[in-house]
């Protein structure tokens, strides 16, 4: 099964795409963005509006969407995994991490 689910990837350098349908685990989706094409087998259910990795992302690596940094990976992430607050952390407004002097 492929191509029956809608997704959007904003910029070719992005590491994630957004599901525009509820996509069940095991589905194979074709993600295209400005001539780049990724075939991704989803490792878990992805809800409408949520993100999944289109490439491997290493622990600590910046995660890009809209071609910009939306945070960093706090664990290794495989293509097809859900990318959300459990494995992505924002880097801005982090008073809990930055000591103010």
């Amino acid at each position, binding site marked *: 099964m492929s191509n029956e689910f809608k997704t959007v990837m904003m910029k070719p350098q992005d590491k994630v795409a*957004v599901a525009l349908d509820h996509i069940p685990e095991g589905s194979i989706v074709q993600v295209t963005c400005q001539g780049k094409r990724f075939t991704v087998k989803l490792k878990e259910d992805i*809800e*409408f509006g*949520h993100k999944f990795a289109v490439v491997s992302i290493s622990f600590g690596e910046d995660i890009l*969407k809209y071609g910009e940094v939306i945070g960093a990976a706090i664990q290794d992430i495989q293509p097809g995994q859900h990318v959300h607050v459990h494995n992505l952390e924002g880097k801005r*407004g982090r*008073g809990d991490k930055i000591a103010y002097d």
Partner: protein
Amino acid sequence: MTSEKKFWGYRRQDGRVGIRNHVLILPTITCATQAAKQITELVQGTVSFIHQHGCAQVGVDYEQTFRTYVGMGSNPNVFGVVVLGLGCETHQARSVAGEIAKTGKPVEVVSIQDHGGTLMAVAQGAKIAAKLVQDASAQMRELCDFSELIIGTECGGSDACSGLSANPAVGVVSDMIVDFGGTSILAETTELIGAEHLLANRAVNERVAKRVYEVIHAMENRSIHMGVDIRTGNPSPGNIRGGLSSLEEKSLGAANKAGTRPLQEVIDYAQVPTQKGLVWMDTPGHDIEQLTGMVAGGAQVVLFTTGRGTPTGSPIAPVIKIATNTSIFERMEDNIDLNAGTIIEGKESIDSVGQRIFDEISRVSSGKLTKAEILKQHDFGIWRIGPTF
């Protein structure tokens, strides 16, 4: 894109144009808000709002609240004002009225202590308001130009679709308003953290670019001073359920509302823009505080995109709400005016939705009521920047 560049508005003495003709009962102190509400129940055509401010405020916090009161009364959607005070408060009704009177509109002061209590003050305020409402009803709408419009843009209850559908469509409208010589306010400084470099690059000069980084860092430093992760408050639990994972992701979607035109200036909360075109008002992401700041800054109409759904409205400015996805539009049809979810479904282009929003602004500016107006959603909240003493 072609569009009718005119609408029917109310010309004010200071040259500005209103799209509503309200008589505002403006309480300058918490203690007067109930009496103000009672006047609005007695007299048709009046509006007011409840708040908890106006006393024991000092310094920049005093000034910001004062500026907000004056801005609400001075907004061109207001025909005339009854400023209602208690008498002993720090935000004196007479001082607020004096500033509003500079616009040339009728302004009267009623004080609960001076008039001998609530019932006498309500009677006096209602008498004045009734006269103002009749005078307002005699004013005719005139053909006005879109260059005289200030639109506020806002997103609240955002989801992952906000940055894909409704916000880019509002960006198209922002560009259209700017191209017609009008003004578009971008706000929500908190929700531009992580996208500030994109806007600073569009600043008309170095000074404006520097201000962009100053207001962003000031906002970010507030969370750092508190020793908290800003994500505990923003993105909100609803934003996170909607698929947004970080403040930066939300910000990059939110920034789309600003379209593509150059950034002319960065203004303070509740300040009236001094430039036409795209301007940035320094406000928090809090929906009602942001809305209030933009309306006090003279916005006659506000575009509000929402993915989770919201009832938000203002007592004096129509708020046009735009759903980011079809599901929330259908579930909260009572509150939401337009649907941009058609973009997600691939049924409509971003430009086409932008055109629909623009046409709706034209109709609403000429008198069509928004859903928030019909439901009397009179929200008001001031961004406090200091403690109460």
